[in-house]
């Protein structure tokens, strides 16, 4: 099987969906051929195949972008809207939260709003305070929307396809640092159902619940700790919200210990919900409190060594696991 990058995986999923359904179209800044197919090249080559009406390069107008996606969805189409970097949702939260997420409910079910909002972000690229935030917790707190993020190319392909299929809005978060990852192409038609986590690695001493880029960190730490006789189970949520509670709870009931891990800042982050839910539902199985790791509670700093220090550290993951399993 061919190897593909995450960028290619996303491109293939979108291409396939556009070929299958004439109602699927893309819009966003710089997405068309004239601009080189998007600043991260995810939509490269699609204008040539599907024309400028289906790959619409937009002005810098995020409210108009999401609004247009919402309207087109109400009329039965399946728009894929791009918000170039996640922080820019700040200018269009109204369209996403008050409209896309609520129109099915407020209309009594008459107007579902099947849109995919692709966006990218990530700490470690040197983009500084206004271009690096992980804001998934905001959307997870909103009813009526799925929050999805892939950690690898195969999932990227499968989750994107499933997100386009979905009959509700999806926030699809791509981590800039994952675009270049390479892995085997799962092939045409591949889908990863929304709301299903993956057990990225089985283990018996503790469950790490994570998603996106930090899945790699968790796996690396699990490898290292295996040598020390600590068996770490790594759960890649893939869908952050509504998340796969069954898989998470089953894992924790098995291991008796849990650690949540994400790049987003820790306070009031998604790890809080997962930890709160685990302690409530797995109280009797837990051997100790659920622990949480997240980014530093500040804006992302510019200087490279500060930015690196800001990110959740592998050494901290190791320390938390050891503290939890009682081996220091």
């Amino acid at each position, binding site marked *: 099987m061919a190897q593909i990058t995450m960028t290619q995986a996303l491109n293939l999923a979108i291409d396939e969906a556009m070929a299958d359904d004439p109602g699927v179209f893309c819009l966003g800044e710089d997405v068309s051929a004239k601009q080189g197919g998007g600043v991260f090249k995810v939509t490269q080559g699609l204008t040539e195949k599907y024309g400028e*009406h289906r790959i619409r390069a937009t002005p810098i107008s995020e*409210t108009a972008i999401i609004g247009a996606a919402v*309207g*087109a969805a109400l009329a039965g189409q399946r728009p894929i809207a791009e918000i170039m970097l996640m922080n820019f949702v700040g200018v269009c939260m109204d*369209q996403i939260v008050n409209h896309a997420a609520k129109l099915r*409910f407020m209309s009594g079910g008459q107007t579902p709003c099947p849109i995919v909002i692709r966006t990218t972000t990530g700490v470690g690229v040197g983009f500084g305070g206004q271009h690096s935030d992980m804001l998934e917790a905001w959307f997870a707190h909103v009813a009526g929307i799925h929050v999805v993020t892939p950690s690898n190319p195969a999932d990227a392909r499968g989750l994107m396809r499933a997100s386009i299929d979905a009959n*509700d809005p999806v926030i699809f978060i791509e981590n800039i640092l994952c675009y270049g990852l390479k892995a085997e192409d799962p092939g045409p038609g591949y889908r990863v159902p929304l709301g299903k986590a993956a057990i990225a690695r089985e283990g018996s001493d503790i469950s790490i619940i994570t998603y996106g880029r930090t899945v790699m960190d968790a796996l690396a730490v699990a490898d290292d700790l295996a040598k020390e006789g600590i068996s770490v189970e790594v759960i890649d949520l893939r869908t952050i919200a509504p998340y796969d509670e069954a898989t998470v709870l089953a894992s924790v009931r098995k291991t008796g210990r849990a650690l949540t891990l994400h790049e987003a800042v820790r306070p009031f982050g998604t790890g809080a919900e997962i930890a709160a839910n685990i302690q409530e539902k797995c109280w009797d199985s837990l051997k100790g409190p659920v622990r949480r790791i997240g980014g530093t509670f500040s804006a992302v700093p510019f200087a490279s060594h500060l930015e690196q220090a800001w990110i959740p550290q592998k050494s901290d993951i190791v320390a938390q696991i050891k503290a939890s399993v009682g081996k220091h």
Partner: protein
Amino acid sequence: MSQIAKEIGRDTLLDIYTRTMKVNRTDEKFRELLMGGKVAVMYYCVRGQELVSAAAMAALEKDDYVVCTYRGQGEQTAKGIPMEKWWGECLGKATGTCKGKGGTMHITDPETGIMVTTGVVGSGLPIANGLAMASQNNGDGRVTLVSFGDGAANIGGFHEAMNMAQLYKLPVVFLCQNNRYGEHTAYADHTDSPNIATRAAGYGMPGVTVDGNDVHQIYPAVKEAVDRARRGEGPTLVEAMCYRMMGHFFGSDFSYMPPEHIAEMKAEDPLPKLRKVMLEHQFTEEELDAIVADIDGQINAAVEHALAAPLPDVGEIYKDVLEETV
């Protein structure tokens, strides 16, 4: 009578008159119910703006899309939402367009093209573009009309939507109902713009300001904008000057409206003006009254129906959040 006037045929005038009175009688009925304490919900009166909505809806085809605001009763009833469903929704009943979950500020009825009623000022314009974009993409020939207020013209979404619509030549009509107030704030206290239509030029879009109390101005202006959109020539901004003759919502204070302004409004009331036009066009007093009587009958029946209708099941709060995949 102006030049344009001759272009409105009798059938169209009758259509506009009927729609106008439907809007007006619905408004009167709603205020009566609220005043009597029979009903206690938020309601945004449309007294003074009936003709604008009615003429605009008359300029559309049945399949065309509409996006409106909390003050959307005019568009909603004039476009043709079945009255029982409309009243049902306003009264929070299971028989409402949205099973009582949307309410007065969020009426949706895709069957009659009322696609979104938004409570967030200015949020309708970007969504209207999307409906129009779908029509442009799939060639269904529909036009989308979005109605909003003068106050909404100051929010970012207005600007972004206008620019995008013109860039793509979307089949959309932007109808600004300039009723001189945004909530408690008078026009001159929210902008220095000479008028809202002037802004269209900044996007390369045609814009026109018309008297929304004069059927001979408002109908042709919207009709031309709709036709232009349908011909694929792109969007138009139509600004209809009118008056909000009541407070912002039913029961709200309107002491901030100066008496001169109220006098000015009364002199420009669209209803007597329209009646005069109808009489000039050889409609009789009797005919016109009969139309109103018929509408009143329909409204009363619809209100009775809605009042008697069942409440939505409490379980509805868990439904329609995401697609139920069983």
